[in-house]
């Protein structure tokens, strides 16, 4: 793997003190400060004193289900609002913005890949990849004069260049192919942050490596920050930095220790 030369791994002592922090003066993609989230009438499910991810980083976030992973992604994605604290993306504080501004920000700057069922079943492969251009003019502009050919370029870069595959209904694709279509969609129009939530857990071993390799290559070609969430620590070495949500999240810590 061609990882960036300047890895942003923190010194161990610093990591112990504040596991989500990185050195100052680095442009930040994600910055959470004193963030707490609780469902109404319940104790906080998420309490993160600090989480910082630099622009261009590829971060492996180890987060088993129940660790507050969905909540964290909801906060970063701008669909959830913290009870306290601040959420900044690329220097912009999104938790104080209106709901529609946050949706707009997400459309412009974020690409998501989920564990499964990433594709809209009634759209073609190409239309699925082009979905972000419906909601973001910025992504549409960045996809070039002809977004469809850019989509095809991304698909072929992800080994889906075959016209026959493009013609197939998305439900007829293999899981590995579906995940690559989802990756192409997340990459289209070069969003600044790509969030992949267990994108490989439905794949077998070989497909997993192939998928990751392609994703990492295309993410760095698009100069995107990558936040990769998985419980499969075997993948961690491919990333520039590894974080454990259980270390970041004080609210989940007791539950983790009980389970351990």
């Amino acid at each position, binding site marked *: 793997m061609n990882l960036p030369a300047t890895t942003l791994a923190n010194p161990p002592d610093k990591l112990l003190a504040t596991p989500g922090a990185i050195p100052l003066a680095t442009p930040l993609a994600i910055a959470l400060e004193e963030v707490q989230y609780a469902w109404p009438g319940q104790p906080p499910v998420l309490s993160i004193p600090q989480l910082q991810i630099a622009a261009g980083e590829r971060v492996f976030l180890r987060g088993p289900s129940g660790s507050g992973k969905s909540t964290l992604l909801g906060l970063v994605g701008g669909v959830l609002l913290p009870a306290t604290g601040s959420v900044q993306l690329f220097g912009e504080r999104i938790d104080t913005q209106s709901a529609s501004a946050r949706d707009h920000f997400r459309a412009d700057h974020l690409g998501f890949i989920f564990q499964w069922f990433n594709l809209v079943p009634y759209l073609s492969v190409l239309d699925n990849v082009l*979905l972000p251009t419906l909601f973001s003019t910025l992504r549409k502009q960045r996809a070039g004069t002809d977004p469809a050919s850019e989509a095809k370029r991304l698909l072929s870069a992800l080994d889906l260049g075959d016209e026959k595959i493009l013609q197939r209904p998305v439900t007829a694709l293999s899981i590995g192919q579906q995940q690559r279509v989802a990756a192409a969609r997340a990459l289209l129009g070069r969003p600044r942050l790509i969030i992949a939530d267990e994108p490989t857990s439905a794949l077998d071993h070989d497909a997993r490596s192939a998928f990751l390799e392609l994703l990492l290559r295309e993410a760095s070609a698009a100069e995107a920050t990558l936040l990769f969430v998985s419980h499969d620590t075997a993948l961690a070495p491919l990333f520039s930095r590894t974080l454990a949500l259980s270390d970041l999240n004080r609210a989940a810590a007791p539950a983790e220790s009980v389970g351990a």
Partner: protein
Amino acid sequence: MTPLFRLAAKSLWNRRGTATLTAFAIAVSVALLLGVQQVRTEARESFANTISGTDLVVGARSSPLNLLLYAVFRVGDATANVSWETYQKVANHRDVAWTIPLSLGDSHQGFRVLGTSTSYFEHYRYGRRQQLRFTAGKAFADAEGVVIGAAVARELGYRVGDPIVIAHGIGEVSFTQHDHHPLRLVGILAPTGTPVDRTVHVSLDALDEVHRTPAEEAAAAAGLPLDTTPPAITAFLVGMKERSTLFVMQQALNTYRGEAVTAVIPGVALTQLWQLVGVADTALLIVAAFVLVAGLLGMLTALLTSLNERRREMAILRSVGARPGQIFGLLVSEAAFLALLGAVAGLALQQGLLALLQPWIEAKYGLVLALGSPAALEWAMLGGVVVAGAVIGLVPAWRAYRLSLADGLTVRV
């Protein structure tokens, strides 16, 4: 917004099976509603068109409705007759253009027999002042001739030249058949969609001869002179030379001291009568409206059921930046589109059925249901269906909105 509509269209196309059924349910109810509305309109029209060009209907003193019912619709019986003298007095009045005597009370095979004069075929008007036409034969010229309406001819299978026997009294079975006095069919009228179709017309003289006592019969056979002036008639129709004299004549008749008679203006009495009959057809419209509501509720059910399987799709759309408001709009536009589809298909269905059934309805009921572009009220109904569809769409849209807020980006299985 256009790409989003395309998205909605593709989503709907993906569920075209249920969507078609949903739209079809709406279409059927829309067709029913439009059909009922059209029958209502045409029935009212045809009702109002039963008689036209007649200025006054005059009969023995009774309620205007009763007079109209027996004189024009051949329903019920007169309580008393009008004397020939009174009739002659009106007929010879200087302001009166024409009169048509009507003498009812006999029947033929269950059809009412109307004794009248040839002025009936000349002056009687229905619909948009249409004159009676003959499909076969011509008007009677003597006491032997009979002219029948289109429905009588069709149901009894009569042809010009057939002998006709008149029964005294009304009803299918009559005990006193006037068979000693055979009459002959001389004319068949074209369909009018009015009670004329179900009437057997004879001359007043014919009725008179039918009703002769054996003594009179014997005298006639002996060649003795007879008083051929009819003793009385049931009612008569009046056409004025100038419409301005109409009210004066009505007033004069209603206060006439020589005989207790009632004169009504047909239009006014028809409106009164329609107010009675109209209740039933309003009830019919209400039933049709409820069927439409059922159709729209079917759509609501289908949309709500589809929501669960579409949560995944909504989370994907949310993740690429769709606002909950856009998800909301997607659902509302889908409902409105289904309703529009249903309305258009319903219109087509109604027109198609009409084209198919129109000849039969016209032949059977004399109701002329015109094809063609709907009237303003029908357009308003169709528009109302689409609006109602969109309004009903607010329910699943609101639910999808709440779901997409709650689900966020979490793709649930």
